[in-house]
């Protein structure tokens, strides 16, 4: 038993708990001239909670994460539903196709979006050919960053919902209809609650990386889209303020945990239709 659990425990210890502990510790230290000094203080948190810029970054990132999650949700449900219900023997292929852009790497995918949205990009160039002005809203704006996020993260959402739906017994929908539920009512009463866990996992898979996102807003967002993640990255890079960066990491981690906890409260295992998860 212990032998079997060992590797897992070691992995969690080395990759999760130790770094987390280190970050937590550093967040109470002080950096000067690119060096960390272990004099314990709360200055970093004081800075984070009083300086308007950091609040703005965090709120902006949170808002962007919420909007991105909701857009992904709206887009992914019909797609996943269609594949699960009507994909037939091409189901797996269709899901893999959705994941295909992953094979090229994040930077390339963002660069591609830049190539489409930018001033000399596909859209604006095409508009120019027809003598129309370029769409400014797509050039280095928060909107462009959000579209980039949706594009990057929607496959996670589709996959999570799809995996939930392939285990969903669609016969239950017929039962609901015979018992007097119209299509919309049947969705609300049966399909949605029985696939909520999968949907919540999808939301978490989109929300959390989006909250910490740094690269996408930097490439697509322009000056008014500086995100919490970008700023965090700068603390460890250009400015060399590791202690402040660590405090930002702790805040990000706490925020993500909070969101997960809120989602966790919405899940009632007994009412999820799940069996074999210890809930009886």
């Amino acid at each position, binding site marked *: 038993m212990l032998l079997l659990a060992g590797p897992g425990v070691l992995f969690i210890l080395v990759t999760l708990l130790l770094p987390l502990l280190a970050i937590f510790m550093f967040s109470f230290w002080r950096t000067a001239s690119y060096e960390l000094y272990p004099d314990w203080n709360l200055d970093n948190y004081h800075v984070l909670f009083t300086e308007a810029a950091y609040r703005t970054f965090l709120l902006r990132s949170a808002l962007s994460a919420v909007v991105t999650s909701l857009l992904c949700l709206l887009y992914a449900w019909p797609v996943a539903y269609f594949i699960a219900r009507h994909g037939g023997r091409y189901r797996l292929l269709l899901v893999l196709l959705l994941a295909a852009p992953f094979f090229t790497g994040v930077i390339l995918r963002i660069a591609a979006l830049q190539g489409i949205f930018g001033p000399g990009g596909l859209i604006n160039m095409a508009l120019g050919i027809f003598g129309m002005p370029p769409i400014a809203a797509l050039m280095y704006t928060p909107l462009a960053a959000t579209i980039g996020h949706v594009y990057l993260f929607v496959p996670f959402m589709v996959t999570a919902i799809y995996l939930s739906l392939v285990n969903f017994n669609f*016969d239950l929908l017929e039962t609901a209809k015979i018992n007097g539920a119209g299509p919309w009512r049947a969705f609300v009463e049966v399909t949605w609650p029985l696939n909520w866990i999968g949907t919540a996992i999808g939301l978490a898979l989109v929300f959390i990386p989006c909250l910490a996102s740094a690269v996408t807003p930097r490439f697509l967002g322009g000056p008014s889209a500086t995100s919490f993640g970008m700023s965090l990255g700068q603390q460890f890079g250009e400015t060399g303020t590791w202690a402040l960066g660590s405090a930002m990491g702790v805040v990000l981690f706490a925020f993500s945990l909070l969101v997960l906890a809120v989602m966790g409260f919405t899940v009632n295992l007994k009412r999820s239709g799940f069996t074999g998860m210890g809930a009886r």
Partner: protein
Amino acid sequence: MTKADDRPASLSLQSVSKHFGPVKAVDGIDLDIGQDEFFSLLGPSGSGKTTMLRIIAGLERPTAGRVLVRGQDVTAMPPYKRRIGMVFQNFLLFPHKTVAENIVFPLRMQNVGRAERGERLVWAMKLLRLDGLAERYPNELSGGQQQRVSLARGLISRPALLLLDEPLANLDRELRAEMEVEIRRYQKELNIPFVYVTHNQEEALTMSDRIAVMRNGVFEQIGPRNDVYRKPATAFVAAFVGQSNQLTGRAEMVGPDSLTMTWRGHRLHLPHPDGIAAGDEVRFFIKYEDVEVTPERPAQGNHLGGRLRDIIFKGQTANYIVSLADGSEIIASASSRDQKVAIGAAVSVTWPATAGMCFKS
């Protein structure tokens, strides 16, 4: 079953067909079912009986024909407007809802008030003996309990019709026998017509007032259960309903109401149906219980000499397997109590000349 002519049938099918490409799953069915009827669709798998049920429920649109419920044409009506109850083989309870929530689901969909929902729930739980299970979830119930919840959900809104699709197929034998009696009791008490689909002839015979035997999308026979059992209309029905010995031979002398058939060198006297002429090949079906095994050769009727090979004990009855001289076997069913002959003994199998049914093959 006779119906009062002044009120419309609870369910009418008028030349209903359903084609899946070149396959005629249901092929021009006409059917009327009365208010007080327990009606069974009996047939092997692939005979079209489930497709027919799904057409009645509205889950399948017929290729041609009309479906009427209480005189109203519902052919184009979606299932959720038809007010028909349905019970499935695999129960299909909502796993995220409690027993009580499952049962009142149809009432909630019909926007029945909370107070009335409560009353009806109590009534349904009592009828189906589900007391104390209201707050359980479906995965906390036994198969039999799940099926009763499913029945309660089907019955609580007092539908115009209850459809049952092999509801007992997933239950063990003992429970099945108990539920057969129960289900028939609900039908008689509530006076709601039941349409019951099964491939199990025992279930159909136990519960039904009328039975339709279905094959390849058409009715082979439709009638009271006694007729289907005693007077099969086709060789298929004769083979499918009840347990019969099947003897195939050639008709020799054909009289007004009897014929003589040669079967493996034996001359048998059989009842004569219309349409058989001398020289025709004939399939003769005689039910196990119509055959008797005796130690001595009887004075009259058909008799074949053989040896009692084995006795298959069935409880109330036993099957007596008799091997004839040429190796073929005839089976007789009788009370298991008075076993007059011992295994291995020389016996006669015998049946009256009027028993059994002949069909031209």
